[in-house]
């Protein structure tokens, strides 16, 4: 009994000695990059970071309902704004941390050179992320509208619920080609691709925000500052994103 009590004491003591880790919610497309940034942050500051990833919409709903995240890295600028309006996030803390880039991709070598392939008839399915849900989907719709192909390609469109699923449709060969995030192709060397010029779609501005549970946590503010640092911007660019110009 005595031994059990002392064991409990030791456990309690060690639990309080380790600081509570920082909880970050991040949109799926940015999760791998967030992991590298968090590792660099942990190495520099000794703060542990716990990352939860999901679609921006799901994470938003969880935060609305009191999820204990301190920082939120969204895939868009709308949900962060809504959180701020709803007093779930600290006013004035939002900023763009990355700009999404779009690519038209196929696993077939030499299949995609430029937008020309979209005008031809060499494919049955074109995968895009659902424009109603995913910022990358809305951007893909922009591109197709700008090229005057949106109406004509309707019968061939298949929609992934998020950009991860869209990627899967293409990588398994079920859709011959699709609009994916350039960041997803950073490690994927095969196939053929066309990097979509950013002026063909509205910018995909990915925003970060400080949530209410993190308001008084110096680690949360430090993490957001780190996200703006040159080191982090470098990692973000290398992962296939654009970075917002310095204010």
């Amino acid at each position, binding site marked *: 009994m005595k031994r059990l009590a002392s064991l409990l004491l030791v456990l309690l003591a060690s639990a309080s000695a380790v600081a509570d880790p920082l909880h970050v919610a991040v949109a799926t497309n940015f999760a791998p990059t967030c992991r590298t940034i968090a590792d660099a942050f942990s190495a520099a500051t000794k703060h542990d970071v716990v990352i939860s990833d999901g679609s921006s*919409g799901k994470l938003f709903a969880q935060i609305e309902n009191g999820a204990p995240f301190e920082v939120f890295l969204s895939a868009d600028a709308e949900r962060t704004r*809504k959180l701020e309006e709803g007093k779930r996030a600290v006013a004035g803390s939002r900023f763009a941390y990355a700009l999404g880039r779009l690519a038209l991709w196929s696993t077939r070598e030499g299949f995609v050179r430029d937008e020309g392939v979209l005008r031809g008839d060499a494919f*049955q399915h074109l995968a895009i992320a659902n424009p*109603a849900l995913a910022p990358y989907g809305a951007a893909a719709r922009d591109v197709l509208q700008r090229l005057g192909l949106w109406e004509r390609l309707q019968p061939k469109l298949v*929609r992934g*619920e998020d950009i991860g699923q869209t990627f*899967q*449709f293409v990588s398994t060969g*079920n*859709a011959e080609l699709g609009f994916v995030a350039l960041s997803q192709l950073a490690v994927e060397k095969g196939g053929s691709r066309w990097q979509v010029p950013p002026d063909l779609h509205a910018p995909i501005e990915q925003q970060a925000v400080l949530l209410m549970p993190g308001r008084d946590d110096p680690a949360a503010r430090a993490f957001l500052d780190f996200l703006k640092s040159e080191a982090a911007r470098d990692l973000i660019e290398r992962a296939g994103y654009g970075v917002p110009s310095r204010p």
Partner: protein
Amino acid sequence: MNGDIAALLLTLRLAAISTALLLLLATPLAWWVARTQSRWKAPIEAAVALPLVLPPTVLGFYLLLALGPHGPVGSLWGALGGGPLVFSFSGLVVGSVIYSLPFVVQPIQAGFEQLGRAPLEAAATLGAGPVDRFFSVALPQTLRHFLAAAVLGFAHTLGEFGVVLMIGGNIPNRTRVVSIAIYDHVETLDYAAAHQLAGILLAISFAVLLLVFATNRRLRGTPVT
């Protein structure tokens, strides 16, 4: 809202077709499993039960690979002249049949096991052939189990999400089922529409289950002759 009604009708059609196919497929399978001494019995039972424990997304992912143009099923289907299975209603039917298989096989199997051999052997000594034995003896006595199997298969297909998410492609009138429509409403923060559709699905599911439990009681009450 029009899109939601289309999704609802599509879902009901998917559940009805899948349930019919499931009953056709599950009956001989359950019959065999219930009566066999084969060493394949356990592996087959385990394989049938897999969808109970696997996350639907795992099942969906394997289906995406298998039904795809480079997958074994997809390329065979294509060679036989079928269109692409993924992103099509037929693909959803295939997925639903696999996904709901244990919900249909297991109740029927339990029915056949409870029935035992005695009534069938008695019928055989009275000169009934195998088909006659099945339709005049086995089927009437296990009707309760068939009903449970059909309703579970139907209800389970109604609520299918993970598999459809993976192989559907969210095409209106073809693969956009209710659960996907609800998911989209939640994701786009249209909670009112999500509530409405989810409420309808809840009501249908409850009504279907209520039907089976009420009928079940009545069937159980009738003396077995």
